[in-house]
Structures are given as C-alpha cells and as structure tokens.
C-alpha cells in the first residue's frame, strides 16, 4: 500500500468492506502472531496512534521506531534501516517519512510489505481510504458517494493528502473541483485536469456536497504564496455561514483554527472531522490485514 494512484474502485470497496468488518468486531484477532513495525521518521499524532491501535486491537505485536531513538539518528540510511527491520522479522513496515517516494524506495528493498503512512508531498493513501470510509458512513455507503460533488480546498500543491484523496474521490465516482490560489496549485494541465474555483463561496455555488479542507502549513503563511492569513481565510476558509446549505466539512488534521476552518465549525454537526479520525483504526486494520495476508478478503 504505497499510493492510491492507480487503485481501482473494486479494490477500494474491498478495503472499506473489510474495514467495516473490523469496526463491527467480526475480525478480532486477525493479526495474531504478526509483527508490525511502525517507522515514523516524521511527527504524527493521529496516523501513528491509529496505526498502533489498529495493529494492537487485532492482536499484532507492535514495534515503534522514530528517527530520534533509532540508528537513523546515527546516520543509517533509510534503505539499511528498513532492510534491518525486514530481516528482524517484521510482517509489515508502516513508514512515515519527510520525502516523497520514500515508501516506494523502502518497498524495493524489503520482502515485508511497506505501508505508506505519508511521504513528504507524495501520498497518504490510508488517509484517503479512511476519508472515503467516513464519508460513506455519512452518505449511505460507498455507493452513496457516486455523483456527489466534493471541493478540495487549499494547498493542493504541497499536500500528500490531496494526491491520495483526489484519485480516491474520483474512483468513488465523485465530481471533484479544486479551490485554491494558483500559487498553491500544480500546473493547469496534465496533473489533475479538474475545474479550479475561486473561493469556498464559489464551490458552494458549484454545488459542493463536501468541502474537503487541506491544512495550510505555517511556512506558507509568510507572504510568498499567499499574502496574508486574513485574505486566505476570507476566500479559502470555511466559516459558519458556509454550512447553511448542508455541505459536509472534512479535514485531515491537524486543523489551523481560524485559517482554513473557523473555530466554531471544527466540531459542528456538519463536520466529519471526528468521524475521519475514528475511521482511522478500522481502515488501517483492514490495510494491515490485507497487506500481511492475514485476511484474504472479506469473505474469509
């Protein structure tokens, strides 16, 4: 599980069905006897915790590794580190790294499956899967996503979440539009080929059922790509008045309150943000189970 680019609709459906089975407690102990190594070489709260819970609750042994406490701090290379984990008997390596392509590089050198838990501005596939799961729960299942409109708002250019969630939404049959200033978008053609809208207001006029807000990183707030937080929040932020038409709000976290989402919206009833976090455990259990071969399919 390295990327969501190129993953088909039926594969996604299978993972989400399996996640539901985990959520309903039908697959307790599915990972018994397996060893899952969590190699998080970049800060993480929800991804790290939910992977750990996903592994433990299904009975796996968990070994956690961070950059500080590992030989990476002594200068060991990424490849040597994952080869070591592989030879020590990891059944799955969950990797978070600051550089795009790190997970794919690691996977080329291990026999254990590598699960990408976020690589730089590259991909964050399990985030996209849990988003589809949480949204499906809200809209009557995976098929309920068909023909719904989702606006992906914010720093698409630097977002690994965007690079995973956009193909995910498209596979689910959703219509996708981007909302961002051109300084935070990839070139017009050949990347996403999606409509570009000028503001959250315009996204709602377009008929967005879902506003998927991306995190604006602090270092982008200094004037090089956006003039000011005030202008960004005015055109690319969600505030209470945007909720009147019933649109759902999503955000992969962590949220900059008052920047991409005003504080009183984060935990509003129309916000799926807590549901997204909650979906992380069962979806990651499903991904671990499929990757390690612990479960062949939902039927098993």
């Amino acid at each position, binding site marked *: 599980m390295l990327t969501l680019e190129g993953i088909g609709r039926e594969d996604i459906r299978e993972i989400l069905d399996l996640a539901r089975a985990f959520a309903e407690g039908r697959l307790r102990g599915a990972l018994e006897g397996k060893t899952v190594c969590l190699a998080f070489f970049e800060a993480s709260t929800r991804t790290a915790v939910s992977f750990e819970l996903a592994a433990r609750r299904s009975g796996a042994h968990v070994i956690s590794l961070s950059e500080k406490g590992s030989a990476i701090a002594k200068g060991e290379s990424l490849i040597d580190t994952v080869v070591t984990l592989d030879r020590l008997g990891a059944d799955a390596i969950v990797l978070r790294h600051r550089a795009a392509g790190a997970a794919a590089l690691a996977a080329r050198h291990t026999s254990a499956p590598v699960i990408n838990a976020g690589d730089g501005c590259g991909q964050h596939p399990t985030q996209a899967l849990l988003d589809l799961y949480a949204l499906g729960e809200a809209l009557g299942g995976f098929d309920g996503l068909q023909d719904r409109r989702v606006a992906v708002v914010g720093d698409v250019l630097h977002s690994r979440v965007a690079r995973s969630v956009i193909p995910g939404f498209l596979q689910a049959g959703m219509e996708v539009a981007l909302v*961002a*200033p*051109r*300084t935070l978008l990839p070139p*017009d053609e050949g990347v996403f080929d999606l409509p570009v809208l*000028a503001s959250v207001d315009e996204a709602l006029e377009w008929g967005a059922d879902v506003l998927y807000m991306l995190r604006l990183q602090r270092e982008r707030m*200094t*004037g*090089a*790509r*956006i*003039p*000011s937080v*005030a*202008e960004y929040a*005015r*055109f690319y932020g969600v505030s209470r008045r945007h909720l009147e038409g019933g649109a759902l709000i999503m955000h992969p976290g962590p949220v900059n309150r008052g920047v991409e989402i005003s504080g009183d919206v984060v935990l509003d009833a129309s916000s799926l943000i807590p549901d997204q976090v909650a979906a992380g455990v069962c979806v990651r259990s499903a991904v671990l189970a499929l990757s390690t071969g612990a479960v062949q399919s939902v039927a098993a």
Partner: protein
Amino acid sequence: MLRGGYPAELVIRHAHVLDPATGLDGILDVRLSSGRVAEIGEDLRGPRTLDADGLHLFPGFVDVHAHWRTPGREDEEDIESGSAAAAAGGFTCVVMMPNTDPIVDRPVVVSGLVRRVERESRVRARVAAALHVGLAGERLTEMRLLKQAGAFCVSDDGLGTASAGVLRNGMLYARSAGLPVILHCEDHTLATGVVHDGVAASLAGIPGSPASAEDAATATALILAAETGARVHITHVSTALSAALVGFFRDRAEITADTTPHHLTLTEDLVSTLDGLYRVNPPLRPEHDRAGLGPALRDRVLDFVATDHAPHAPEEKELPIEEAAPGFLGHETAFAALYTELVLGGALSLKRLVEAMGSGPGRWVGTGGTLAVGAPAELTLVDLAEEWTVGSATLVSRSSNSPYLGKTLKGRVVGTIVGGEPVHDRTGAKFGARA
C-alpha cells in the same frame, strides 16, 4: 464655451471623424446624448451644436501609466491637476500607479483613492495597486481584497521586482485574483547607473545602466507570463531588443506592451546637456533603439503608447543629472510630440497613432477607445494644424518637467469630453466665444 454646461445633448458638426475601432474616417456629425454616442451621420441637428470645421474627432485617449503623486506628493501633482493635465492631452481615462507615499498596497488606501477619484478627477481614473507589500519585492499584497476595494490591476512600477520567484508567484496569484499585472522591467544588478550606458554617458562621465538591465528583466517577465498564464502588460519598453522579445512572446503568452512618447522621439544625446531634466527611467536610449520602436509600434509588436506621466518638483530636477529624480511629464505633449515626430515624419500613420493612444489602450482597460454608437461619449477634438510651443506657462500640470520645454510641436488638443461632458475646452479660444 462648453465649460460649466452639462449638456444632455450635443451635436458636434463637420469634424473629421477618425475612429480605428469602427473604421469611421470622414467629415461627419456626431450626436452625444445622455453621456453616450447616440448617432453619427450627416446633417445632424440639435439644440446645442459645436461647429468643429477643420478639427479632427478621435476616440478619447487612454493612458495606462500615470503618476499623479497622490497620496504623498500633492505639491507635485494631485488628482485634480493630474486629471486636468490628462484632459488637456486628450486623455479620457488614466491608470494611476501605486508608488505613492504611502504605497497603494492595502485595501483601505485603494478604496480611499477610488472615492477621491470620483470626487476630484475630471477624467476616468483606475487605481493600480502594488504587486508586493511596500513594493519591496518580498510579500505579495492581498490582491483579492485589493480588487474588492476597487483596484483595477497590480503593478511593480517604479522599481520592478528583483526576485523572479516572487514575480512568478505574484503572476500566479494575480491570475487567481483576476487582476492584470503591469510590469516595470529592470534588473537592478545591471541597472547601477542613472542614464543609458552609451556614448553620451561615457563622454560625459555619468554612470550608465546598460540596455541589458531592461532586456534581461523583460525576457524574465515574458517567460514567466507564458508559464503562469497571467495577463501581463510590459510598460515603457525602450529598447529594440525588448520590443523584439515582446514580439517573440506575442502568441505564446497573454501579453501586451507599451512604449512612451519620449522613447519614441528623444535619444541619449540629451544626456550631453548634463541637465537633470533629462533623467528618466528607463533612460533615453541611442538612436538605433529609438528608431526601432516606431516600426514596432506601427507593426503592432508594441500594442500602444503610455506616457509614464511623472511630475517632479523643480528641486528634484534642477540638479546634476546624477542627483535628479527620474521622470517626465507626459499627458499634455504626448499626441503633439508623436504627431509631429512620427506622423509628419512619415514613420506612423495618423490612424495607427489614434489607435495606439485610443482604441488600443481602451481595449486594455475595457472602456472607451471607440466612437461606436452606444459607446460612452469619451472623445478628443484635435486641431492638427495648430503649432504651439511647450512652456511651463502653457502646461496645466502642477509640475513642469517636460522634456519638450521650448519645443514647437504641431497638433493640439482643443477639446476633451468624458461621459458627454466637456472636461477640457479650448474651442472658445479657437473660434472665438459663441453663444
């Protein structure tokens, strides 16, 4: 004789109407009604008429580059005097540059200027906001809020943008904000002097800036315009190479470009006077550059003319050239200088000159520039036969730093009408007072 009146209707009779946008070219009558061109034909009559026998009637001129020094240097020019100077030059619409004090980089400054223009300007005036905060070339301005406040475009005029990275992001963001970008192309690592780095500067011992300072920056701006898809206008092109670069990118980017009356008519020879009056940025160039700009304008490689009207107080110009402030007055002499030097000199047709001053920039600002029926009644009456000598007493501007001082030019604006109302009127002086 029209001053003070606000005629609901006016018929201008027997003018030679020349309007490149509609193709009109002949002796015709024009009826203006309720601020619009109502009718064009022969033998039109009405309660008020103006006999324009012997005069030419053009679409109002548009100047996309003016410094009205407001706020901050109202001793040099303000909205009233700047717009009066524009009207005296036949301009019915002007774009005000943002390098004032304070710099026009905040929405509150823009909205304040827009309100003042409504009250104080004789002609239409659009506000250009700064492309980056303080025109310091680092942080982008709040272009979307600036646009909401009434900004018409953004610009880095005065200094340019040192960092190509900032310029690229500025273009991308301006595209998102829906604002065109007017660029002053100058590379400050090359532009270290005060005049063109040529023979005259070398002989006089004055530090020069090479043409490459403009050409390299122009190339950068054009490449970035093509890459970002932004709507970019390159202002005051002064070299033959920069004009050729614009031509190369004509179909590769959404670009337009202007050159100035002074770069089309004057050369670096004036540097040998050592007179601070003749310092301007970009500097006056050698004859081969000047001679290259006329054909570029004629062939539409350069889209139109803008004056870069830049008033300065005497204490900023009556100085050694190295210490003088750069800039020339432009509004009042633009048509006459270009008519005298280029049209009468055979380098440019009158029709193309009217297009380069009226319909071309009019299309760019989206208003005026045509005498089509139904269009806003914004027009300019010119006496092509009148000879006049440029002197500080004849200039309406609050300043008098015109490079044409003392020169005798042919062709003079005798009337300017904005929204159907006369904002400049010498027809009385021309024909004698009439009822």
